[in-house]
């Protein structure tokens, strides 16, 4: 972002001369516009020219607030004398002028000083906007130097001289002092003052003298000055002066002298001069006709004199352009038909009035018999209609002034003809003249004819316009009506929007409820249908149904479940596997009954949960065994543990009753104690010794081994307190680079979806350590199946010891030390040194016989 924090300031002082005469209405704005200049290094000389209103007071008030104002007061002597008085006091580097009812753009001085410095120019000219200050919203007309295309445009003295007249004619910026920055030194050097005897163009005269001397001129196409063109303001410039025309012609002569005589000018410059002189003269003539108030006779005499002015006459004759509003009477001027000229100009190019007349004439009720009125109306109509049909060459070509122009052209041809052939005999000449006159007559006849034709057309168009106008009035009425209705509607809309929004909200809520209900019902139907289909399908198949599988956080149980799935798919490949976890059992009981057929085998999840330690699980075992007497039931490798308490005995007997009652129940146990127990109490049950299912997860791991892993219980089966655990850690530390710790319990429930992932990650963890110290059964088993040497401590029940005795006793990598922590140091040391872990239990694949054992009976 590039923000210019401060506007240009410099040590170059601008002096602004402000002549003040009876301008209290707008003077404040003029002076205020100086105070507000972004360029602050200026002084203003306010020259009160004997005002009779409050103007002087305002000047003094500004001077009191802002010391950059100086006030001069003098007797009334006209604007030039006021400016001269100001000039006499002016000091500084630059000079500018402001009139008391105009004002400057806020950054005008900044832009002009900047341009003067950059281009080292003695004259800067900005655009001027003419605004009626009482109606600023109308915008006004911009007088611009855009004819020069570039902005800013810098012309050096020669380039400026070449274009001087065209600049005067095309930009309308060169006559006045407004929106310009002059070089004070040059001005003083040239001793330029304003000629007090001139009532017109004194500023132009001064400018011309300055133009002669300036080194270069910079034009900025931005508005720097606002000129107050308020109508009917009583200021001098607007009043009619009888010597207006003569003064203008004097000014034109002065201009010509300044340009060095019209003969020395280039063709375009000369043309611009003629156009400028013609249009200036014509506008003075126009003012004379409209404002002088003379009687016909005197007016005609006056006009005659004016048209006879040599410079004006030549300009009229040679100008390539005449302002549109005078075009129609040019032929009459040539013909000295002053009556027509007066009539034409008095009718005026006042488009508004013409329009009004048209409308009046076109109102159908009004009789159109007044031919004169109609003629005038048609003429004015054409002025309005022609731009409307601007593209139509026909209408354009046949306007009346074009006709007059045509005649004028022909006559000119004859004259030049006559001159060229002055030596030719009269007879030939007369013949030619006659011929041409015949031609003229012919053409005139045709043109008359066409004019009549066009007038007819125009009448048509007039009617058409009348219709259009009527239609437009109707439409406008309708529009107003519509506008009102739209306003009303908007108001109502505003009022009602709240209640409508409320309704929408309610109905949206309602709809949402309905949709949700519908969606729920469809989903429900779909669910039921799927359920029915699934049950029908499953009922037809032979199934291995795993019941009471683990979905809780214990990774050991998760590993058993995973292993059981593997075993079943290996050993019972023709059976379709269905899993119902302990969590789901209650919910899926009906489902189980529905899909079950008599071929299905129910496999109850193994582990260490047969006994009274986990009464819920045991109750579930009993429930399954008692509820499905017709099906083969297999309890996968378990450790049995009933406590010796009264409750333990009661529970044992209850289980024994149920298990013994089933006619096809096979129970695998993981140790000798359990085997003996089962054979004693569950004597009707086929009981077989079998290592834990997790053994099938044995695999060859190739991780780099590092440090020791402590896998110690924190649950109710563990018996090591915090102090013992700390001791264990300290001992192990002596032999291992690092000690990690795991509880073998996952941070959340291990659902069937993440079961494989969690178990494998845990095994990888074991496989990346040198030694494991554990009191967990599955800590030991995980160590073994990953071939990690392992020191085993006992836990609260006999499970781990029993298992060790049954399966790992002969291994060189499992060291059981029971409760004797004194052996720990030694055991860890040995374990670390084990090179080639060997386990006889893995040599045979114990689970391969499961199928045979199960179906044997």
């Amino acid at each position, binding site marked *: 972002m590039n*923000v210019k*924090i401060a506007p240009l300031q410099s040590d170059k002082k601008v002096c602004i001369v402000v002549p003040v005469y009876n301008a*209290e209405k707008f003077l*404040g704005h003029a002076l*205020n516009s100086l*105070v507000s200049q972004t360029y602050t290094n200026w002084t203003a000389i306010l020259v009160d020219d004997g005002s009779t209103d409050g103007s002087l007071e*305002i*000047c003094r*008030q500004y001077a009191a607030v802002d010391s950059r104002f100086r006030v001069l007061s003098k007797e009334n002597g006209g604007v030039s004398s006021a400016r001269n008085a100001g000039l006499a006091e002016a000091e500084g580097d630059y000079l500018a002028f402001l009139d008391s009812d105009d004002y400057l753009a806020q950054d005008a001085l900044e832009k002009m000083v900047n341009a003067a410095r950059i281009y080292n120019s003695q004259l800067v000219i900005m655009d001027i906007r003419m605004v009626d200050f009482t109606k600023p919203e109308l915008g006004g007309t911009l007088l611009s130097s855009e004819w020069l295309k570039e902005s800013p445009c810098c012309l050096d003295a020669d380039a400026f001289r070449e274009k001087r007249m065209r600049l005067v004619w095309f930009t309308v910026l060169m006559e006045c002092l407004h929106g310009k920055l002059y070089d004070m030194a040059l001005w003083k050097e040239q001793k330029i003052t304003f000629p007090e005897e001139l009532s017109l163009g004194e500023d132009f005269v001064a400018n011309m003298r300055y133009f002669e001397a300036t080194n270069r001129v910079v034009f900025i196409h931005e508005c720097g000055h606002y000129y107050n063109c308020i109508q009917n303001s009583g200021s001098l410039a607007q009043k009619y002066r009888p010597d207006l025309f003569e003064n203008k012609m004097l000014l034109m002569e002065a201009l010509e002298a300044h340009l060095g005589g019209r003969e020395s000018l280039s063709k375009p410059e000369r043309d611009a001069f003629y156009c400028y002189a013609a249009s200036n003269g014509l506008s003075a003539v126009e003012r004379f006709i409209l404002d002088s108030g003379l009687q016909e006779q005197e007016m005609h005499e006056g006009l005659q004199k004016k048209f006879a002015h040599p410079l004006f006459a030549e300009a009229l004759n040679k100008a390539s352009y005449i302002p549109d509003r005078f075009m129609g009477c040019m032929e009459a001027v040539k013909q000295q038909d002053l009556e027509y000229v007066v009539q034409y100009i008095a009718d005026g190019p006042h488009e508004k009035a013409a329009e009004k007349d048209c409308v009046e004439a076109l109102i159908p009720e009004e009789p159109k018999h007044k031919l004169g009125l109609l003629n005038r109306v048609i003429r004015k109509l054409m002025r309005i209609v022609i731009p409307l049909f601007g593209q139509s060459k026909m209408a354009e070509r046949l306007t009346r002034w074009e006709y007059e122009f045509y005649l004028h052209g022909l006559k000119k041809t004859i004259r030049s003809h006559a001159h060229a052939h002055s030596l030719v005999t009269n007879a030939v000449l007369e013949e030619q003249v006659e011929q041409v006159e015949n031609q003229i007559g012919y053409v005139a006849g045709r043109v008359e004819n066409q004019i009549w034709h066009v007038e007819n057309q125009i009448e048509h168009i007039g009617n058409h316009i009348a219709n259009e106008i009527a239609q437009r009035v109707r439409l406008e009425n309708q529009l107003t009506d519509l506008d009102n209705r739209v306003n009303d509607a908007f108001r109502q809309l505003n009022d009602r929007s709240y209640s409508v929004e409320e309704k929408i909200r309610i109905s949206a809520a309602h709809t949402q409820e309905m949709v949700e209900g519908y969606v729920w019902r469809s989903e429900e139907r779909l669910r039921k249908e799927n359920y029915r289909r699934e049950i029908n399908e499953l009922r037809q198949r032979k199934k291995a149904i795993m019941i009471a599988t683990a979905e809780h956080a214990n990774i050991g149980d998760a590993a058993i479940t995973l292993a059981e799935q593997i075993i079943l798919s290996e050993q019972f490949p023709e059976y379709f596997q269905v899993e119902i976890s302990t969590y789901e059992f209650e919910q899926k009981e009906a489902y189980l009954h529905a899909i079950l057929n008599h071929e299905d085998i129910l496999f109850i999840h193994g582990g260490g949960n047969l006994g009274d330690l986990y009464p819920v699980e045991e109750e579930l075992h009993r429930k399954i065994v008692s509820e499905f007497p017709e099906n083969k039931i297999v309890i996968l490798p378990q450790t049995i543990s009933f406590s010796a308490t009264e409750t333990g005995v009661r529970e044992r007997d209850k289980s024994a009753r149920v298990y013994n009652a089933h006619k096809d129940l096979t129970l695998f146990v993981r140790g000798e104690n359990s085997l003996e127990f089962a054979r004693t109490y569950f004597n009707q049950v086929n009981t077989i010794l079998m290592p834990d299912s997790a053994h099938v997860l044995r695999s060859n791991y190739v991780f780099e081994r590092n440090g020791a892993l402590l896998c110690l219980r924190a649950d109710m089966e563990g018996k090591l307190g915090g102090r013992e655990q700390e001791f264990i850690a300290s001992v192990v530390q002596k032999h291992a680079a690092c000690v990690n710790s795991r509880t073998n319990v996952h941070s959340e429930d291990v659902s069937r979806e993440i079961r494989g992932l969690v178990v494998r990650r845990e095994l990888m963890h074991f496989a990346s350590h040198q030694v494991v110290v554990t009191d967990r059964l599955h800590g030991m088993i995980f160590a073994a199946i990953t071939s990690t040497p392992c020191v085993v401590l006992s836990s609260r029940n006999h499970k781990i010891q029993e298992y060790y005795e049954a399966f790992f006793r002969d291994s060189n990598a499992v060291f059981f030390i029971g409760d004797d922590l004194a052996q720990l140091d030694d055991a860890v040391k040995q374990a670390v040194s084990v090179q080639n872990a060997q386990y006889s239990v893995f040599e045979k694949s114990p689970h391969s016989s499961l199928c045979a054992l199960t179906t044997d009976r």
Partner: protein
Amino acid sequence: MKKISVIVPIYKVEAYLERCVRSICCQTYQNLEIILVDDGSPDRCGAICDALAQQDARICVIHKKNGGLSDARNAGIEKASGEYIAFLDSDDWYDVAMLETLYRLCEENNAEIAECSYRNIYENYTVAETSSCGAVMEFTPAQAIESNLDWKYCKPVAWNKLYRADIIGDIRYPVGKIHEDEFTTHLFYLAATKIMYVDIALVNYEHRNLGSITARFKPKNLDVCEAFREKIHLVWSREDLRGIDQKMCNNYCYLLLDRVKKCEQSYPECDELIKTIQDAYEDYEELKKHGIDPQYIQEFDKLFETYHMM
């Protein structure tokens, strides 16, 4: 050279902000503290403020949660450390001589508040608010309040004034209200002993959103009635304002009847309208005692009857 704190509340003025801040930075009076209060503006204003602060050490920026114009000005007052305070809205801008002129008026005349005229900036043209005749005038607090009522010279707006900081005291802008200046301008006047006014336009007041939906009448516009009500109660309670009570009451009546009519057109029977009319009814007897125009009495009677209060 005493320090002047200029407080600029900023909300959604991306297009205008630079012009505003630049006009403060290039004041001919240079001893300034420029406080830009970014009132949680959702556009790029916050970033523009920070960038401007990088370029002029006198600028400090407060970024706060949106709380409205009043809240933002109050935050600026808390932060201000200058001996004089001025407020400028972020779509308006100063002429270069603004602060210098008002500062000199205060100092040379030992006045607590100085005030100037302003220009109304429309989309395509500019209208000066007064004839800018350059006159310097001196007002007592009561005269200044009267001048507000006449809409002549002193104006009930915050941004054409310079305040000596010690008179601000605990006067704050009412958070959550619009027409906040109507609630506060007279309080500032009353805290002063002398108010100087110069009839030169030195502030440019941008008229935005003409005819847009935000320019439509809303029930919130009835806040101005509340502000005037506070003013008439204050006038009734003070001996020194006895002289302007009738004018103040008539002004209140005119304003209230006008706003009620506008509100009835778009939001008939909204809570704010009923509250405003009830307030007027409470004051009605007292208003009559202070000689309000009989025409207003007639209209009030009609109004109260319509709303079943009489």
